[in-house]
């Protein structure tokens, strides 16, 4: 009987420990999602992208570098639609695809789905590295990591998709 009690105790303890790990990971993911929802990121150009695309570096923040890398794609597409980026020598800056600063709030439902995990945004962005984030792009700041990921955003495709959905005006639609 005593042996059985011990087994139950050990099992309970193990379950608590496992639950702790799971909660921590989920919490970190939630924090990253929250950062993404608040769109805490920075964008800088890397080089002139091939036709119809931008080659940019997105700096995302998370306690776990892996999570920051996951969020980078989402941040990159968001940045291209709503923020744009300033140029550097040899690479011109780009304005956001929309000039309506309230678009995200006005079309909240559309963009919630668009940027959902595995959402449509993924069609327009590719990570452009050899499989690892470069050492200079993995920086620990206080208690979180700032991770820079080079991505290529298919701006032509993204613009067309948003035009078709009526989110942004076409380039030929005039003023």
């Amino acid at each position: 009987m005593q042996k059985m009690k011990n087994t139950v105790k050990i099992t309970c303890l193990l379950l608590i420990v496992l639950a702790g790990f799971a909660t921590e990971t989920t919490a970190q993911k939630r924090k990253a999602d929250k950062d993404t929802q608040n769109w805490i990121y920075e964008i800088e150009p890397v080089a002139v992208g091939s036709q119809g695309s931008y080659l940019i570096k997105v700096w995302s923040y998370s306690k776990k570098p892996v999570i920051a890398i996951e969020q980078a794609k989402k941040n990159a597409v968001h940045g291209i639609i709503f923020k744009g980026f300033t140029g550097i020598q040899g690479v011109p800056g780009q304005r956001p695809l929309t000039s309506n600063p309230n678009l995200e709030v006005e079309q909240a439902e559309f963009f919630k789905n668009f940027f959902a995990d595995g959402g449509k945004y993924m069609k327009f962005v590719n990570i452009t590295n050899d499989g690892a984030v470069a050492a200079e792009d993995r920086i620990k700041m206080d208690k979180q990591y700032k991770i820079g990921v080079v991505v290529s955003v298919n701006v032509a495709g993204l613009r067309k998709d948003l035009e078709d959905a009526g989110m942004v005006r076409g380039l030929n639609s005039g003023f």
Partner: protein
Amino acid sequence: MKRYLILLTLVSFFTGLAAQNTNGKINTRYLRPSITMLFAEPKDADEAILINKFRNLEVPGKFDDHRIQFPDMKPVENTNPAKKTLLENYIRKASNPVIAKWWERDEQGNFNYTLVAKRASYTATDADAIISRGSNTSRIEMLGEQLIDRSYILLYEITDLYTMDEYYDRLDAQNRKKKDYTPAKRTEEGYNCDYKVYAYKVAFNDSVAAEFYNRYWVDAQNPDKQKAAAWADATFPVRLITEAAGSVRSSQTKAKEKNKVKKTMQELLEDIPANIQSGAAFELGRKIEDFKLKVTVFKAYPVTAKLGTKEDLYTDQRFYVYEIEQDRSGNQSTVRKGVVRAKTINDNKGIATGTSLPSAFQQVQGKRIYPGMFMESKDDYGIILNTGFVSSGNKAMGGFHIGADIRISRFIKKPGWHFGIDVAINPFKNVYAGDIETDTRTLISSADMCSGNTLALAVTGSKEMYFTRRGNIYLRPQVGLGIQTYSFSEVGSYSIASDDKDYSWTSYILPAGIGLGYNISPMLSLEMKPGVYLRTGASTDNKESLSQTAAPTDDKWGFGTIGKFSTGTTNTFSLKIRF
């Protein structure tokens, strides 16, 4: 002109990036430095042979060979107070052909981009290749501009070159002052060479590059006779980064050896430059930041990184793995997280396409490593000094322990292998040894108390093996071959002279053991090594074997088995200091 403007823009852009790196940002990538070797004028015929051989040596593979035709430097005495200035003036003049070579200046004074682009392609990483594919501008060609700012001129000076005969003469002259002078045994022939190398960097930063383009750039599309003529007096800023000195010996035994062709004195002389070059490259590699290999951790466990034969990566080459931290004002610093050593080396010679295979590394100390961390080479000499104590049932095999190991993995291309020497010294005082005699005389009787020293010395081969991810713990199987000696200072009421060969006994030993070590830091390890040994019967230095007829009942010093094979166990506790 258009070309010129593009180049100017690119140079400004990339030198800007380089400047950023000096402004609180960590420089995390290895861009192949180019090496130009220059020499101080030979002072005699032997030096001329040596330097002529040196001139034709390829530079180590991790550098680009940037040889130029340039006269040797006139010898300058070390005592000359203007030496530094004279050297700098000489190097400054050499900077002209160095930069001319980068831009492949032709007889008409035209520059072109071919070599810069070629070297840039070779230095580019997989990441560069992948980004270039996604871009309209060639990022790889742009890298070339940064390479020019990593032009190094190494000025070699032979400070002393002398034969082994001269070496023995010098040794004898030194030893003659001592009381018990005996002339050195002149067993070797060959040469000794002392050298010095001065490492200068040719600056090609933003402002220098701009001036270069403004004042000197001429190409086939933009001819300019004035600019072409101005080039004759062009020099570039140079800076002495560091200097190193060393000695090299190239010798062989004078005795005839069967089945071995002996080298001529000239061949021995010609062996020296390669040794000077590898020694200098190693020393400078430790001192010059641009010479250190830098790379990103590609994957963790197994730890891999995209370095290989192109960067002269060698087995067990040591790297520190860092995390880059940034404070609120944007200043970056590195925090060491672990130490790794190259385990399997990939052949990555060729131009990166984005799919090159990484080399594998074994973590040997530290905390968990993650992909994306920063790795930097921290070459060590591969020398390990050990100190501690050995306990054994036979105290003659134990005592105070010192030892040294030299890593040989680089040469045999297998990780973890060491060649070493282990010594244990133990004094004994007032110990009963029993009746010990040779065929001709009784040396010790059972009533005599003895005092003296024991020594166990073995040359060993061992392999450090790692089974855990972080490599803080290792196993080190070791075997050896050596001798164990007794030397007596007192037997009974008699004092024994130190040169009394009857009281100096030697056995052969075969020790073996498995060390269990813990790497406390990159430099320090603690090790416990249980082991066994086989000891032969001892003989005196007069080559007489010993026999034991009445061993003491409490025999702790191995006298009971002095005349026959014996076995036993040892346990060695040591602190290992790695250099």
